[in-house]
């Protein structure tokens, strides 16, 4: 059963990100000029302004940098409260915002190791796979 989720940002760049997720791969844009990894997807490198970007595969592993738990309903009841968000530092460097999978904010320890997995979701743009993170 796909989970109904609030809307993704779609369009050039973003669509490719979700296509890779659909294949079970976490890929971020990498600037061919300065090597920066960019997320969310951008038309040009936010660091050096270069316009050439490749989609680079991430290992999907990282460590937990921060978290928060939503008690206020910002999405009209679509997401059961409370629910948690986490900030993960990917081993490649970028910080990736996501949800914990199989653990909650009570279990969080600074720097705990996590790895990506994909869950079936849908929004008005259709069915897609959402990257979330489980303990390793």
């Amino acid at each position: 059963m796909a989970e109904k989720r609030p809307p993704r940002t779609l369009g050039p760049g973003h669509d490719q990100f979700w296509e890779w997720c659909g294949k079970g791969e976490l890929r971020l844009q990498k600037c061919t000029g300065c090597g920066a990894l960019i997320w969310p997807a951008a038309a040009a490198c936010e660091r050096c302004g270069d316009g050439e970007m490749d989609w680079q595969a991430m290992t999907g592993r990282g460590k937990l940098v921060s978290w928060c738990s939503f008690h206020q309903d910002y999405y009209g009841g679509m997401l059961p409260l409370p629910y948690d968000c986490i900030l993960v530092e990917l081993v490649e460097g970028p910080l990736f915002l996501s949800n914990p999978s199989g653990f909650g904010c009570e279990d969080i320890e600074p720097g705990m190791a996590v790895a990506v997995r994909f869950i079936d979701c849908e929004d008005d743009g259709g069915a897609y796979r959402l990257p979330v993170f489980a303990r390793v």
Partner: protein
Amino acid sequence: MAEYGALVMPPSIPELSRKAAIVGVGETDYHDDYRAQRKPPPGYEPPTTEALASLAFERALADSGLKRGEIDGLTGSFTYGGPPPAELAALLGVKPRYNIANGNIMAGPLPVVCAAIAEGKADIVAMVYAVNSRSVGRVFGGATHLGGAEGYGTPPSYYYYHPWGWSSQAAHWAMIFAHYQMKYGLREEDLGAVAQQVRVHASRNPNAVMQTPFTIEEYMSSRYIVRPLHLLDICLVNDGAVCLIVRRADMARDMVKTPVDVAGWGEARIKHSKFDVMVRQQLRPQLEEAGGQAFAMAGLGQADIGHFEGYDAGSMHLINQIEGYGFAKPGEGVAFCQAGEMDLTGRLPTNTEGGNLSCSYMHGWSQVAETVRQLRHEAGSRQVAGVRNAMTSLAQTDQAHPLVFARGD
């Protein structure tokens, strides 16, 4: 969205320092308006943007002792819409030679006016700000925040992470504090001291929306908005208006009330890696850079500042600014507050009117009004004794805009 619109700040150069002074302030009745909107008496209509703006202007004009006909400059700043320049002038009964729509939130509009005065475009400018976020039912967070053309200027962190349920300014401050806790070993209740201190200040301000002090136990039992932050960590949403009357500094010396010189300003924004800069560095590079610009322009330093107004959209963000500008060491901002250093007799009396948390959410404008009262030494029971210089800081999730003020006598 114009809220984050690209208002071009004049350069932070000593040549523009102290060229203009604030000589009049006016504010609306935050406390009474908030109460009336929560429990409307029969037939109550919330005040319009125009009515709020007019009231603030009339009060500022009376405060300045100037005559209406002397006003030769006017700017309007409105967060959710307001009258265009010509209509605003007609509404207020003034005939300005300089009249512009001037962004909306502080701090940009004030340097713009100071530079205009230095360039001779006007000698006395009335700056009007009004916001009616509560009566228009403004929602902070959720899928109303969009990217693309509709959401022009909105930071991606306000909308991009909807699929993971990430939304609201509160979530930004929550994630910063959760990381701060891990890094420095703070307990959740430690942060309560910040909102508590600001409320103590507000208890001395009859115009503050919220004036009743609370205990740390009451803080902890207030509901979570985005854990680890409680309701009391998040700013108010209320309607109101502020007017500042700004005069050419050399013409402002013989007025009834002490002029308050605009001595310095700065600006810095996150250019990339927002989560890293915001969460792991608490916006420190931007606060240091912009603070450095403002101090250098004013010829002053941290030790000269006797009163601070920081943008407490969330309690944690006030700590980011206290640390980032160098008033406390990294990781020591909450302890600085717990030790009473933000109280009236502390090293840095902070948000003495009650800030955005307890007084009024005027997007920085009411904090400038409070700075003027403090530097004039007319803040009554919440006066910081003998204060001569002050800093007022606007800071969003990705940018910092400090202002430095000096008593002009």
